[in-house]
C-alpha cells in the first residue's frame, strides 16, 4: 500500500519548470584568478565584462570560451557600467574609476578617477556600489556604512563626524574595541557621506548628496520604467531586506547616515526616538522575507526580450546570496503608489547560492556571477538559457479592495486553487539586528473566482492592511495540463491598500 502510494505520488509530480525550459552551464574560470565576482557588464561587441575580488577586470568571449585581461589591481570592484568596447566605469572601494583602452590593444591604459569625494574610515564594511545611469547620463553611486565588527583605521580619508558616543581616538582604538564597539552603533557612518547615495553629473564634475539611510545596499539600478531601485541587507534597522524606489532627498531608514545631512541638528541619530525616525523614513516598495525568499539580496537587472517569456520582459530580476534562488519582482500600483510582489526563481535548480551579480548577454543568456567574501556564498559564473518552452508562472499580482488578483501564464486547474494559503505579517522598525514576524495572521480564502480563460484568479480575503507583507503559498496550484508553478510562493508588500 505504502509502495503504491509513493509510486502514484511520483507519477503525479509534474516535471519542474526549470528542467523543461532552462539549461544551466558553469563557465570556465579564468586561470589563476580568485573567481569571486564583484561586478558584471556586457560590451557592445557582445563580450561579458567581469570584475573579480582581487581586482582583475576580464572579458569573456562566449563563442571562443576565452578570457582576456582588460584591467588589474582594482580594490573590491562592486559595480560597473560599460560605456563602449574600450571604456568601462567601475566602482571601487575608494573611487569611481573610468578604465580606458586608448591605444586599442585590448588592455586599459588609463585609470581615471571620476569621483572620490567621500569618506573612508578603513573599515572593511564600507563597500561602494554603482554606478547606475539615468536617461540624462547622470551617475548614481551608493555608499555602505561601517560595521562595528571592527574599528576605524588610524588614518581616514575625508571628514570625521564628532556626533556619536565615541570620539575619534576611541573609534580607532583596536585594543579597546571589544569594550567600546557597542557604543559605536551596530553599523556606523562617522566619515563623510557614508550611507548616502550620490548623484554625479555626466561629466563627473558636479556631485550632490541625493538620498540617505542606506546600510549595505548591494544593488542599484534603474527599472524598465526609470525608477531608481536599491536593495539593502537585513540587519540593524532592517527587520528584513528591503527594496526601495529612491527619490531625491529621501531617507531610507538606517539612521547612521543622518549626521551627514546638511541641515542635521547635531543629535546622535541613535538617540533620536524611533518614532521620529520612522516618520521620516520612506517606505520600502517590497520586502524580501528573511530565511524564505532572500537574506542578502543583490543586483537588480531588467529582463530583456528573448531571455524569458514575453510577459516577463521589462520586469526586474534580483540576485540573492544565501538562498539558492533569484528573485523576480512583479510591479503593482495603487493610487500612484508603486509596490511589488516578489517571487522566487530557480529554487530547486542547480543555480546554487552566492548570486551577487546578474547580466544579460546579447543572445538573452542570463549570466550569474557569484561571490562570498567570507559570508555565505559561492564563486564562479553560471550561464542560464531559456529554450523557449512556456511554463506556468505567476505573471501579475494586483492588490484589490478585498483581496488580490493573480494572473497566471497558463490556465490553471480550478480544483488546485482551493489550497492556496495566504498569511500576512508586519515588522518592527528598530535598532536591533533583524526582527521576527509581527502580528502574523492567516487570511482564510473567502472566495476564489477564476476567469473564463482560466488565467486570472481573484482571491477574496477581506480588506488589505497597509505596511503588511502578504505571503502566498501557491504550491498546490497546477495548470490545466498539470504543470507546477515555476516560483510557487509570492510576497506582496502592501504600502497602500486600495479603497
Amino acid at each position, binding site marked *: 500500500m505504502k509502495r503504491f502510494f509513493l509510486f502514484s505520488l511520483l507519477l503525479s509530480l509534474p516535471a519542474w519548470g526549470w528542467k523543461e525550459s532552462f539549461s544551466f552551464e558553469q563557465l570556465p574560470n579564468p586561470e589563476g584568478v580568485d573567481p569571486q565576482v564583484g561586478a558584471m557588464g556586457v560590451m557592445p561587441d557582445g563580450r561579458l565584462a567581469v570584475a573579480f575580488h582581487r581586482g582583475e577586470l576580464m572579458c569573456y568571449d562566449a563563442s571562443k570560451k576565452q578570457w582576456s585581461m582588460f584591467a588589474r589591481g582594482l580594490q573590491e570592484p562592486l559595480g560597473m557600467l560599460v560605456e563602449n568596447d574600450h571604456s568601462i566605469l567601475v566602482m571601487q572601494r575608494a573611487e569611481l574609476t573610468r578604465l580606458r583602452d586608448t591605444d586599442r590593444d585590448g588592455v586599459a591604459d588609463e585609470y581615471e578617477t571620476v569621483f572620490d569625494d567621500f569618506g573612508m574610515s578603513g573599515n*572593511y564594511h564600507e563597500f561602494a556600489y554603482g554606478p547606475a545611469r539615468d536617461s540624462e547620463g547622470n551617475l548614481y553611486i551608493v555608499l555602505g556604512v561601517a560595521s562595528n565588527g571592527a574599528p576605524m583605521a588610524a588614518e581616514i580619508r575625508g571628514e570625521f563626524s564628532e556626533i556619536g558616543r565615541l570620539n575619534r581616538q576611541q573609534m580607532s582604538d583596536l585594543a579597546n574595541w571589544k569594550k567600546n564597539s557597542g557604543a559605536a552603533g551596530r553599523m556606523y557612518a562617522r566619515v563623510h557621506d557614508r550611507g548616502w547615495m550620490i548623484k554625479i553629473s555626466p561629466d563627473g564634475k558636479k556631485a550632490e548628496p541625493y538620498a540617505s539611510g542606506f546600510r549595505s545596499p548591494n544593488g542599484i539600478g534603474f527599472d524598465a520604467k526609470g525608477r531608481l531601485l536599491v536593495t539593502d541587507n537585513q540587519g540593524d534597522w532592517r527587520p528584513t531586506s528591503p527594496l526601495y524606489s529612491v527619490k531625491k532627498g529621501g531617507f531610507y531608514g538606517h539612521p547612521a547616515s543622518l549626521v551627514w545631512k546638511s541641515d542635521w541638528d547635531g543629535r546622535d541619530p541613535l538617540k533620536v526616538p524611533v518614532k521620529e525616525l520612522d516618520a521620516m523614513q520612506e517606505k520600502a516598495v517590497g520586502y524580501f522575507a528573511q530565511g524564505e525568499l532572500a537574506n542578502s539580496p543583490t543586483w537588480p537587472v531588467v529582463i530583456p526580450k528573448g531571455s524569458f517569456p514575453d510577459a516577463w520582459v521589462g520586469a526586474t530580476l534580483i540576485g540573492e546570496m544565501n538562498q539558492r534562488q533569484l528573485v523576480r519582482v512583479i510591479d503593482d500600483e495603487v493610487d500612484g503608489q508603486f509596490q511589488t510582489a516578489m517571487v522566487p526563481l530557480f529554487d530547486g535548480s542547480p543555480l546554487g547560492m552566492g548570486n551577487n551579480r546578474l547580466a544579460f548577454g546579447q543572445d538573452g543568456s542570463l549570466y550569474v556571477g557569484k561571490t562570498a*567574501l567570507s559570508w555565505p556564498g559561492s564563486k564562479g559564473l553560471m550561464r542560464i538559457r531559456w529554450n523557449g518552452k512556456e511554463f506556468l508562472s505567476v505573471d501579475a499580482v494586483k492588490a484589490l479592495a478585498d483581496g488580490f488578483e493573480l494572473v497566471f501564464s497558463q490556465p490553471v486547474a480550478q480544483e488546485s486553487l482551493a489550497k492556496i494559503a495566504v498569511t500576512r505579517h508586519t515588522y518592527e522598525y528598530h535598532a536591533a539586528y533583524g526582527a521576527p514576524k509581527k502580528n502574523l495572521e492567516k487570511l482564510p480564502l473567502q472566495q476564489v473566482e477564476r476567469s473564463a480563460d482560466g488565467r486570472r484568479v481573484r482571491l477574496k480575503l477581506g480588506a488589505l492592511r497597509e505596511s503588511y507583507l502578504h505571503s502566498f503559498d501557491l504550491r498546490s496550484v497546477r495548470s490545466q495540463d498539470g504543470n507546477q508553478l515555476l516560483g510557487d510562493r509570492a510576497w506582496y508588500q502592501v504600502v497602500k491598500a486600495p479603497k
Partner: protein
Amino acid sequence: MKSVLRIFAILGLASSLAHAAPDGAQLFANNCAACHQLDQMVVGPSLAEIRGIYQGKPDDFVKWCVAPQRKRQGAIEMPSMVHVGDEGLRAIYAHVMKVAEGVTVKKQQQGDPFAASREMTKRPQVQRIFMPDSGPASIAVAVDAQHSLCWDAGACRLRYMWTGGFIDGYPYWKGNGSSLATLVGQVRYTEAESPFGADKKVKFRGYTMKQDRPTFHYQVGEMRVSESFSAAADGKGIVRKISLDPTPASDLVLHFPAPQNGTVKVESGQWREGKLTVRPEQASSIVLHYSFP
C-alpha cells in the same frame, strides 16, 4: 468583467495552516545551510563541531542563535536567527544533533591558493588594497621583483618604499577586507608628508599605465603633477620622476628626506638637508634615483 468570472466558494479551508510541528531539516536548509556544513568550517563552524559544543544544551543553542556574538578570529559574526522563533530553533537543534552524530571534523586548507599564480606573481604590478601605515585609499606598486612602494591616493603622496618583495594580500583577500595586506621585505624609505608640503589642497586624478608601470596624476593647488616609478637600470633601486604642469614662475622647494637605509641622487636641482630646490625650467622633469642595499 464580473460576469465572465466563474465563481466557486471555498469550504473548510480554515484549518489549512494548522499547527504542524516545525520541520528542523527544512528550517536548517533555509536559514543555516549556507554557512554551516556537516564536517568542515566554511563561513561558520561545522555541525560536528556545533554538536560537540551544544550537545545536551538546547537552551544555550537557542540563546546563541537569537543573540550571537563574534567569537572566532577572522570569522564573520553570525546574524541573529530571531525570525525563526523558539520552536523552530529547537527543531533545528534536534536536526543538527541528529545529522552530526558520529561525524568528525575535516581539516581546512591553509594559505593562499593563488599565491603562486601568474596574476599574483607578475612584476611590475599595481594593486589597490588596504595597506599598513597609509591612508585607506592606498595603491601598492611593485616596480620589479625586489622593489615596491606604497602610494596614498587620498593624500596624493608616496608613503614608503621597501625592498625584498611585494605584498601578501591574503589577509585581506581571504575574507571581506577586514585585514590589511602585509609587506614582504623591509621598509627603506618613508615620507612623512607630501614633497609639496602638508597644507596644500590636493586632488587625485588617477593613473596611466605603460608597460605595467603607473604614472600617478594629481593636482596640487592649480598645478598638475605627474609622478611615476620604475626599476633602476642596475636593478638596485627605484627611479622616481615628477613633472609639473604648468611649471612654477619661480624657484620651487620640495621636501624629500634622506632614505633611512639607502641613497638618493637627483638629476637636477639642489638637494640639501631634505630640501630640493628646482628652477622653473627643471620642474617639468624632476628625477630622483633611489638605491637600496
